[in-house]
């Protein structure tokens, strides 16, 4: 595939992530911060998010598995996950965390477990999508092209 085609494919793929609500404008903000002095900025930030999210999801899973659930602790983890997902623009994960916190406030174990399942699905979904996006970018660069910048509104 020639570079121009790959670039168009990347733009369409990225657009689809926004149209489906998987990513929001915060992701574009991250891309705007990437430059020659910081060429891997987005990948580095997203990698930190992946590490953080997987640890938090494990912590939440363990906490909800206890005989007596410590809801303030669960809420603290969910709050942190909400923050880190918001930082990278992982909109569906962030929204899932907002709903989850309501169940924590109600100390609703069943609701919390359902939310956790949903958030895990959304997290792995966005992880797969972002890894595919980064692979597309790498292919463009390897072919001698440059990664096109997304507009802030489209």
């Amino acid at each position, binding site marked *: 595939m020639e570079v121009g085609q790959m670039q168009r494919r990347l733009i369409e793929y990225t657009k689809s992530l926004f149209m489906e609500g998987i990513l929001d404008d915060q992701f574009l*903000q991250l891309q705007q*911060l990437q430059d020659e002095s910081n060429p891997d900025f987005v990948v580095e930030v997203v990698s930190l998010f992946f590490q953080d999210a997987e640890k938090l999801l494990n912590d939440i899973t363990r906490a909800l598995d206890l005989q007596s659930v410590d809801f303030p602790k669960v809420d603290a983890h969910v709050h942190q996950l909400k*923050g880190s997902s918001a*930082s990278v623009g992982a909109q569906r994960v962030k929204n899932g965390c907002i709903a989850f916190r309501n169940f924590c406030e109600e100390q609703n174990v069943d609701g919390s477990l359902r939310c956790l399942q949903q958030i895990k699905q959304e997290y792995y979904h966005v992880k797969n999508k972002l890894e595919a996006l980064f692979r597309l970018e790498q292919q463009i660069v390897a072919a001698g092209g440059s990664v096109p910048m997304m507009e802030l509104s489209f």
Partner: protein
Amino acid sequence: MFGKGASSSKSMEIIGSEKKFSVLIVDDDPIIRKIHGALVSKFTTEIQEVKNGKEAVDLCRSGASFDIIFIDKKMPIMNGLEATKELRAMGVNSTIVGVTSCDLSSERNDFIAAGQNQCYEKPLTIEKIKSLLSELNKNN
């Protein structure tokens, strides 16, 4: 002090500074430190980062001074409100800007009462920083 003008180039140069200004970023979240560090680096090169309020207080106590301190609210060891009160009691007159991932409307009074000049919801954006610098420019 904080001039006009912004680079429109793809690789954003330092924006809007006729004079260098120093910034301290205080946050326990490495993702936020990285993002806010990159954001602030578009405006100045004088940036330091610490992980909690106590480190910020110790740094200022050791003689470091900053024009702007971006400080998270919830942090271990010493949170943003406690650190702000401590810094003000020490006589630190930096512009202190609170950042929070909670609902800002309910947090704003806490921030102002602690002695902060301004507060924003996380994450910061280029527009929020431009707006802050513009406000500081007017006040100066």
